[in-house]
């Protein structure tokens, strides 16, 4: 019996050894281990073995079976690997061939800049609000301390619909709407479209965007204005950005200032980009004029506040080094795709 098993084993292993394809290995498996296989036949003949010898023979049969299975499995694995390797060798591709593009669209540079500004101020607790683009003279001028005969009204080259209704020249008009709601404190930014009658050229557009900011609370100081806008500039233009505040004049703020930031190209050393000055003018700001507060029924003895206005296109042009404002409204896909 033992010899027979040895013989079966040796023959099986020989056949495994000789197999050069998975199908052949399968044949070996069927021939020896299958229901009608040789080893199964041996097991079936166990009834002829003396009962006392059965455990021993059984063990022998199992050992033989396990050995054949083990070798068989190893061979299968080896052969499968060889087949897979051969297949993969045929599947080599040129990885430098062009990508299959997903053709995702692109945001307008103005919007990218706007979302950046919104993110910064929302993080500082500001609410984003909107106001009408076609506006009453009162909100655009009078309530901002620019009465009927004020020269600033001419300076701003306003588009009028009629004597009372105009296209807003500044998002500052939204300040007034917010203040009139009477809910204090206020921390808001108001982005939006504004209009001035400038002919279209590389640096002018009759329609552009501003972002107005307004904070009104008890004990708001000019130092708070400086701190807030310095933080804004660092977030927008980079951690190393420095700011400079220069006195200026706006009818609706007092004191007023313009803010310059260090040129983000040369870091303030002076280059062609900043015309050698090292600084770039970025926004106008100031402490809300007490008369403006009074007109909106806020007591300037109790409340103070600051306001600022940023030109969105200015930021977009500077940040993305766009040299012609007309590109922003032409919507040439070759331009838009760069953002």
């Amino acid at each position, binding site marked *: 019996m033992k010899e027979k098993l040895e013989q079966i084993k040796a023959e099986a292993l020989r056949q495994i050894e000789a197999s050069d394809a998975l199908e052949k290995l399968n044949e070996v498996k069927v021939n020896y281990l299958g229901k009608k296989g040789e080893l199964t036949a041996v097991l079936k003949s166990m009834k002829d073995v003396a009962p006392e010898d059965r455990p021993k023979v059984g063990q022998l049969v199992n050992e033989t079976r396990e050995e054949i299975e083990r070798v068989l499995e190893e061979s299968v694995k080896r052969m499968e690997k060889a087949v897979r390797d051969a297949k993969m060798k045929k599947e080599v591709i040129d990885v430098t061939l062009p990508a299959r593009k997903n053709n995702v669209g692109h945001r307008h540079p103005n*919007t990218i800049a706007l979302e950046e500004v919104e993110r910064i101020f929302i993080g500082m607790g500001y609410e984003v609000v909107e106001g*009408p683009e076609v506006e009453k003279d009162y909100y655009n001028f009078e309530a901002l301390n620019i009465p009927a005969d004020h*020269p600033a009204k001419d300076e701003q080259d306003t588009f009028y*619909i009629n004597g009372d209704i105009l296209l807003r020249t500044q998002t500052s008009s939204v300040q007034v709407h917010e203040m009139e709601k009477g809910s204090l*404190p206020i921390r808001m930014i108001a982005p939006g479209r504004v209009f001035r009658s400038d002919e279209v050229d590389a640096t002018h557009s009759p329609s552009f965007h501003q972002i107005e900011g307004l904070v009104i*609370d008890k004990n708001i100081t000019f130092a*708070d204005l*400086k701190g*807030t806008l310095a933080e804004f500039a660092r977030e927008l233009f980079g951690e190393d950005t420095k700011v400079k505040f220069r006195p200026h004049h706006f009818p609706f703020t007092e004191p007023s200032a313009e803010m310059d930031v260090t040129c983000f190209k040369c870091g303030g050393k002076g280059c062609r980009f900043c015309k050698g000055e090292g600084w770039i003018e970025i926004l106008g700001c100031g402490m809300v004029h007490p008369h403006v507060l009074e007109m909106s029924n806020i007591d300037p003895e109790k409340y103070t506040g600051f306001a600022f206005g940023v030109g969105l296109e200015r930021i977009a042009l500077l940040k993305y080094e766009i040299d012609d404002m007309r590109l922003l409204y032409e919507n*040439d896909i070759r331009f838009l795709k760069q953002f």
Partner: protein
Amino acid sequence: MNTALSWIKAYVPDLECTDQEYMDAMTLSGTKVEGYSRLDKNLEKIVVGQIDKIEKHPDADKLIVCQVNIGSEVIQIVTGAPNVKEGDKVPVVLDGGKVAGGHDGGPLPEDGITIKAGKLRGVPSNGMMCSIEELGSDRNMYPEAPELGIYIFKEDVEVGSDAIDALGLRDTVFEYEVTSNRVDCYSVIGIAREAAATFRKPFYPPKVEVKENNEKVEDYISVEVKDKELCPRYCARVCTNIKIAPSPKWMQRRLAASGIRPINNLVDITNYVMEEYGQPMHAFDLDTIAGHKIIVRRANDGDVFRTLDGQDRNLDSDVLMICDAEKEVGIAGIMGGENSMITDDVKTVLFEAATFNGANIRKSAKRIGLRTDASGKFEKGLDPYNAEAAINRACQLIEELGCGEVVSGIVDVHGDMKEKVVLPFEPERYNKLLGTDVSKEEMLDIFKMIEVDYDPETNNLTMPTFRQDLLRQCDIAEEVARFYGYDKIPTTLPNGEATTGKLPFKLRIEQKARDIAEYCGFSQGMCYSFESPKVFDKLLLSTDDPARQAIMISNPLGEDFSIMRTISLNGMLTSLATNYNRRNKDVRLYELGNIYLPKALPLEELPDERMQFTLGMYGDCDFFTMKGVIEEFFDSIGMRKKITYDPNSGKNFLHPGRQANIIYEGTTLGYLGEVHPEVCDNYDMKTKAYVAVLDMPQVVPFATFDRKYEGIAKYPAVSRDISMVVPKDILAGQIEAIIAQRGGKILEDYQLFDIYEGDQIKEGFKSVAYSITFRAKDRTLEEADVAAAMKKILNGLEGMGIELRK
């Protein structure tokens, strides 16, 4: 405003700083310097030389050989200039020196022109005698310079000395940008006062003392102001025995540096005082003033008046005129008349220094179409006190410069002069507003420099009259801040009540629209809000289309920008056409922008501003690509109910068979379709284009960011495919409506998988195939469940005249 630094230093003699330091410091204290230019730029090694001897050039008819004494030695210079003679003193640039430009007066080269010793037609020449153009200036600024040739010094200058200094070119001209509230800084004195305060140096304004003769001004002139509101103050003085001559060099140089051409002593003095005091003045030839009387009154509607530039001007009753006893002699604050113009024969001059209503001057100048230096100053609203100071200064200069005699006295007509503004001194308040800790003493120091008076008795501050911008405590705080230094104010963050930053729902939906459009390959465009009324015809809108009711801008940039858009398509189609004509392939654009719908015209209340989400594309795409974008967008904002499409959308600008309204829960939210080929033609696009417009105010109420998890199905689905022969005019939407209605609760989904028209199908029909999926949430479906549902569906379809294909 441009001014030479030397003129400022005349009043702030202790000022010592580099040009750059001056620019930076002035800008930081609020007098913004736009830039500066050195008058001696690229002028090197240029001295005063005297021509000892002139000889003919041996080999050239047009050249001469000069021996020029330059103090240390005599050098030989060859020149072609025709105007020099022996004994002349001239500017000479030495070997290795530099001049600013060529003798033709063309644009100045950035680095100047270097002059080297050399030979001219074989004769050595060791330098160059200079024309005024080569020195970077011109005859406008140096009227004594010859038209062609070398500048010759008329005055006594030392041979060998610095010629640039002698010409007054060792100077820097600064350009200031003065803010509209600082009327006082439109003057040299105003800027000098700011400079003195900025650098904390003493300020010495001109001392005005007028030497008068024995005559009385009242014997020469009387003044009547009929409209005191438009003319708060009118000062008149008279000068006699006028001798017209050139003004002195120092005055010419200062004017020239300010960009004003020197003319003669009388004109130069009025211009000089206008620059120095910021007060425009006018000089009349008194002999032309009828009745020796000045009347200030309004013009009559329809009057025509010839100004001294020879132009006839149309007047109206809002224009203020200066008149004599018989006629108009000048438009107040804007320009004098030809009839009273000063000529070289003038004997007696009447000076006017007045204050006019700024807004009136501004509007008059605009209506007349004549904006002058004078009107530009008057329109800012001048200080009435300044008028008297300026006229006295002019008379002082007349006398000092030997231009004439000053008649004693002044005719001064004015109403009540405005009271000076007085405010209590509240240092804590200023510090509280600024967030600073500036001492009381430092504040008082600042006030002293800017001539704000402090009275310790009353603790009151009195504003000087020239500072018309100082009205409230916040204005005082700004003065403290300016001279304390904006840069020294600390930086803090507001520490009040915490607030929540937020983006409103509407804007979040718009953000989602941008995201989805971009995922779908659309890039964001931006279009103008105003456009041409011609777009309605371009879009084939019918004459009674409500979209034609557009708001008109009363002062547009031109017809192309004259109406507020009522439809967003023109912008989109224009942008697509731009891309098409630039041969950009497969373009997809979207825009989020308002249209403006008037509630009534003419506009009485603000219009309805409606945000439109507009998509447009051409190239590799079709109607259904666009439909997919709309559905992705709706899905992303929680609008997951069935969207229906109604082909009867009636848009003239879309292909009649390829357009649909987009309907959600019974509300039309927008439309989509293929652009009508005629419209494409109108926009010069020889391609099919597709557009969709969603009216966002209609969309937003349906949107939600709420999400509820419904569980993933545990039981298997059963699918049935049906193939139908359908009358051509039945829409897929109608078939789907039947499936949806009759499929019952177990209906999970249905998908069109084939649609075919052609040979194998009989005329007037199409073949349509759907795959319908059923599933129950709580059990495995039995064949009977599905069969029942299918039967209902099929019955419904058959009821519409649809045949099932076996």
